[in-house]
């Protein structure tokens, strides 16, 4: 169980009492920003993807602003329909490529990977403000960046001005102590947390993660958690930038982008949520909401037709390693379609080098190009009537995977892999 403590308000607070959210927005707005304030902040990176990008570009073109504020910090990603499944989307891609060529902004091509993974690998820095026309822009919060999703109009204006307005969010401190049980992963933690606080439990708030469990957690795990904070309504999910962050950035060839980021010890939180990691079991979100969670063991016997491992939530090397380890030498149950969606070209290459892709292909898996894959129902694994899918993605809304008459469950890569082997939802502790 989680315990929740109401925060204290402190009218005497001073400039050294800042949460991570307040700290970043103070720096980027050049003001002493406190929760509830409205500020105009510099934007370090603004981006859109191929399903929101065309409207973003059109809104930019009609805004009256003629040039991008920072072309080298503005990006368009072709990832949601990559490669394109039809002529309409191909024409949208042409439109985006033309705009990138004329404006000088960054273009990430089909096959490079999901925007959020590439932003994490190549662009976002601790302390940055990142806005993207995609709700899972929050992923870079794993690096200590104030990263949040906005609509096309807001991103279009940030393209042109290099800044946007924010209401500085109140923060919830989420303190995670102890170690996960074997078979339990950061994905189980975030599904569990959303199950506890609800799909609107953190609406308009920042979730700031800390505690000895978080201090040891890999960047891969931090990105998984940050990616899903929007499923509790949060504006941003922030992790401290520490030695693990520094090593990750060094491994991406961007050691110079590192800076240490922590909340002040006397920061004021609206609420503190304490979670003992050992209490968490392999967790599954049931149709049709992310907060509709249950332990995987309670769903034993739930028949599946498709299993998806990957996406921006769980398509990193560490995720594929866990799944490959479970499949090695084994085959999915008959009638299970197993789809692997690596988060980026870099992840795919590393997974090839590590032999994981061979393990997947030998197990009978379909490898789809790095990108959003079947997550949002455009292509590469749309569900049939009455079918059930277990996915490591972040959303299981009605109609999400191309069919309102289908059923989507969400889990960790370990639970997904174990369930692919049996053909029904399976607690991975039964197989690892």
């Amino acid at each position: 169980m989680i315990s929740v403590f109401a925060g204290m308000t402190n009218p005497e607070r001073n400039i050294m009492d800042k949460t991570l959210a307040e700290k970043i927005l103070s720096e980027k707005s050049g003001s002493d920003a406190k929760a509830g304030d409205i500020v105009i902040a510099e934007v370090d990176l603004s981006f859109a993807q191929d399903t929101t990008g065309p409207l973003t570009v059109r809104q930019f073109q009609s805004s009256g602003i003629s040039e991008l504020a920072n072309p080298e910090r503005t990006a368009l990603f072709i990832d949601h329909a990559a490669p394109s499944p039809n002529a309409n989307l191909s024409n949208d891609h042409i439109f985006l490529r033309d705009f990138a060529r004329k404006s000088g902004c960054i273009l990430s091509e089909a096959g490079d990977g999901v925007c959020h993974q590439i932003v994490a690998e190549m662009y976002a820095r601790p302390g940055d403000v990142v806005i993207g026309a995609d709700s899972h822009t929050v992923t870079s919060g794993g690096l200590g960046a104030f990263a949040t999703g906005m609509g096309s109009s807001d991103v279009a204006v940030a393209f042109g001005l290099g800044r946007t307005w924010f209401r500085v969010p109140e923060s919830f401190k989420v303190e995670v102590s102890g170690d996960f049980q074997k078979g339990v992963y950061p994905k189980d933690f975030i599904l569990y947390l959303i199950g506890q606080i609800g799909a609107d439990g953190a609406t308009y708030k920042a979730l700031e993660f800390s505690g000895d469990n978080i201090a040891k957690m890999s960047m891969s795990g931090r990105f998984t958690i940050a990616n899903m904070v929007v499923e509790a309504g949060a504006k941003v999910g922030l992790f401290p930038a520490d030695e693990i962050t520094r090593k990750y950035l060094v491994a991406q060839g961007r050691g110079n982008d590192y800076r240490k980021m922590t909340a002040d010890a006397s920061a004021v939180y609206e609420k503190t949520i304490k979670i003992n990691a050992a209490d968490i079991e392999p967790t599954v979100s049931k149709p049709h909401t992310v907060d509709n969670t249950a332990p995987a063991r309670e769903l034993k016997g739930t028949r599946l037709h498709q299993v998806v491992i990957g996406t921006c939530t769980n398509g990193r090397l560490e995720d594929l390693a866990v799944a490959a380890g479970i499949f090695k030498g084994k085959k999915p149950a008959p009638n299970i379609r197993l789809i692997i969606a690596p988060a980026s070209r870099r992840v795919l290459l590393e997974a090839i080098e590590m032999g994981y892709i061979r393990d997947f292909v030998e197990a009978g898996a379909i490898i789809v190009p790095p990108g959003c894959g079947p997550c949002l129902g455009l292509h590469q694994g749309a569900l049939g009537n009455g079918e059930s899918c277990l996915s490591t993605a972040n959303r299981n809304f009605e109609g999400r995977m191309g069919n309102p008459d289908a059923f989507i469950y969400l889990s960790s890569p370990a639970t997904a892999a174990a369930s692919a082997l049996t053909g029904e939802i399976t607690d991975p502790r039964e197989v690892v």
Partner: protein
Amino acid sequence: MLKGRVFKFGDGISTDHIIPGRYAHLRSNLPELAKHVLEDADPDFVNKVKKGDFVVGGNNFGLGSSREHAPLVIKMAGVSAILAKSAARIFFRNAINLGLPMLICDTDKINDGDELEVDLGAGTVKDLTNGAELTFGKIPEVMLNILDEGGLIPYIQKHGDFKL
């Protein structure tokens, strides 16, 4: 003063209910896209809704994707305002950015098919069918200024920058 009929939906109407990803290929053809507005919540909505009507939801209206096409197709259907008990952050901001009022009030007292009268200036909602009178939460000033200009792009066209 806005006046129209209520189309009532429940809690947790997501952006996938409003305009699912499977229609992403129509996002550069807005009139075609708009034919699918709220299809997964009420397949007949698009045929029934009339100019000036209201979409009324429960908790966490518009959760999910950042797709601005969601409030855009609701606006294109002629809806004059969305009322809900609470709204997802990105959807709320997107609606205002398109000049579509998103009003937070206790929608339990409003029923499907009721006639409503909304006074944006006074912050009041009157259910002409059952007599209920409600007030809606104050919209932050920065957003009111954007709404007053008809949305963010017209606001920027006029002011060239954010004016707080």
